[in-house]
């Protein structure tokens, strides 16, 4: 796993020092506790600050059982507007999906479904699509739409199985069993790095409780004071297929116009 701490600049230094102080006190608090519950750990993972705005280029490399690769490239913009997080993706590669775009509005309200639209250049039309498709695989990769989103910790029952050292980092191993019988995964097991609250590894088990696939962290970068995951790999053991995901040219809180998250921009493109 690669950990990169980029140069901190200018005004952000003060804020980052503040964050570090908070993290330090949080850590002291953690050690002062005898034990954190599984829910508390997964809530800390969900609450880990990653900026209000993010943009970058997502590169997915799909590797099949014969080792042949297919590459997808997507330009992505995300903005957290408080009660709603808006995301827009512009597909760059492969050529047959070029200029396709996808927009998602995700709400803090647990009872509100995501709103999703797709623009298909051949049809020259923005179509609303069902938010019920969270279990679908994204662009033929090993990631489902749900894998790419933020799962609410309250949707699962969490148990700390043990602690363990992985890649030289102290980790909690947390088992999360879904409360929804229809959910595509019966449970997941996550290796969460103590104090930093990101996952190093996550195992997924299918509805029959058989081991399905594993997500591993390849790289994480400290950008503008936020730990941003920039490289992962999902390996589906049942299909013998894997997907490497890299997030390049990442910018945090660089100033994204809210007008970017509109039907107008879906049609207009990059």
């Amino acid at each position, binding site marked *: 796993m690669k950990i990169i701490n980029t140069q901190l600049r200018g005004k952000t230094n003060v804020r980052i020092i503040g964050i570090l102080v908070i993290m330090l006190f949080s850590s002291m608090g953690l050690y002062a506790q005898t034990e954190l519950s599984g829910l508390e750990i997964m809530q800390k993972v969900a609450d880990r600050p990653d900026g209000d705005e993010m943009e970058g280029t997502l590169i997915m490399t799909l590797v099949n059982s014969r080792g042949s690769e297919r590459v997808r490239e997507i330009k992505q913009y995300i903005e957290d507007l408080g009660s709603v997080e808006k995301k827009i993706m512009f597909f760059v590669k492969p050529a047959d999906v*070029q200029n396709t775009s996808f927009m998602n*509005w995700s709400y803090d309200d647990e009872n509100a479904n995501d709103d999703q639209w797709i623009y298909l250049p051949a049809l020259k039309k*923005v179509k609303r699509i069902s938010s*019920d498709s969270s279990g679908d695989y994204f662009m033929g990769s*090993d990631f489902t739409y749900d894998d790419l989103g933020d799962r609410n910790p309250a949707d699962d029952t969490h148990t700390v199985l043990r602690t363990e050292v992985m890649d030289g980092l102290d980790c909690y191993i947390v088992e999360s069993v879904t409360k929804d019988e229809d959910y595509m995964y019966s449970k997941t097991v996550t290796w969460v790095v103590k104090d930093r609250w990101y996952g190093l590894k996550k195992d997924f088990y299918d509805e029959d409780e058989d081991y399905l696939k594993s997500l591993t962290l390849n790289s994480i970068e400290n950008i503008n004071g936020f730990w941003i995951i920039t490289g992962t790999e999902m390996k589906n053991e049942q299909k013998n297929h894997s997907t490497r995901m890299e997030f390049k040219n990442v910018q945090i809180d660089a100033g994204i116009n809210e007008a970017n998250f509109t039907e107008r921009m879906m049609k*207009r493109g990059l």
Partner: protein
Amino acid sequence: MKLKSKTFGITLSFILLMTFNLSAQGLSLSGYARNYTGVLLNDTNNYSILQNTFNLNLEHKQDNVAFKINPLIYQYANEDPVFGIREAYLDIFFNSMDFRIGKQQIIWGKADGVFITDIVSPKNLDEFLLPDFDEIRIGTTSLKANYYHGNSAFELVLIPAFTSTKLAEAPSIWARTPDFPESVEIVNDYSNKTIDQSLENSEAFLKFSGVSSLIDYELMAGYAWDDDPTMYITPEFGVVNGAPGLTKVTLAPEHNRLSILGASTSADVMGYVIRTEAAYYSGKNFSAVNATSLPFDILEKDYIHYLIGTDFSMGETKLSAQFMQEYILDYDDVIVQPEQSNMATFLANRSFINETLTLQLFTYYDITNEDALIRPTISYDLSDGFEILGGANIFMAGINNDYTSYFGYFDDNDMVYLKLKYSF
């Protein structure tokens, strides 16, 4: 637009030269090459199509301006290439306004594969409804102006020169002509088909649309020419086999003015996307049988065309169903078309092997005439951008297997086909 021989060569050379020169200046270049082979399943086993296509998209953007040109070449077996421009336009972007000027395809409405409020761009029906939808659309030289306010938008479209829907003509297997006895001479008169290019003959469309977490909507109005011409049929009578009878008919297609009001919506209701679309057409012409002036007459009526549909998933299979109805107001019994015509569409789509293999079934079913078009396909991505697609088009005869039956008329045109497509 079709160009041939020398003109074609010069134009192609110019475009390629322009492409190479501009590629170094940030010109975006994409497109596809495709081979399309179809075989009829009737006794003839004739090829329904032997087509090679080269489609190029050239685009360039900088700050608040952009342009796109989409030249294409169709080459049919043993024929000279046919060169065309699907779109060629300029864009100007402002903070809250966009302008697009030039030849462009404009698509409205929420329905799939059905034309209710989606009547801005006319259709090319040379191969019926079988080509991809971007190939069915005919780009028209237009001014499109958009004004945006948040997630809402006004869109104004002005089309100075009317373009008609392009219908297949004999000897195409997709030509549709009224049936007359062989003894009847048929004369085509196109003298009234062309609309003079003048300001008063322009078309105008206006749309207000928006997206929100609750519902997506479009409200539209149009003052346009009917893209589909009315066929005026003038009979002449004489002596046939020693008895009085029909000896000659003159077929004179003519377009008439229409006023249209319409709306469409789309909303996600508990995992089901519910789509609706409706339009009111004022002044539509309908063919009628008139006992006193055999064999046909024309009546002008208002009519309503509406649709309700849903998209949903069942496991990993995507499903879509639509029901639509055309209803003629103030109906007269002599009109050939029924007072109400009902149709349905059905789509099922499922991908396998990490979306490299896709099975799809799309069906039009005319509930009124009980005829149908069934379109199963299987496609495989050999590699990124290279698709092999095999499919069939099966026409089912209905209760009225004549020219009034939209799909059953082509009952002899069942076919299988293969498309190889390389996108770049």
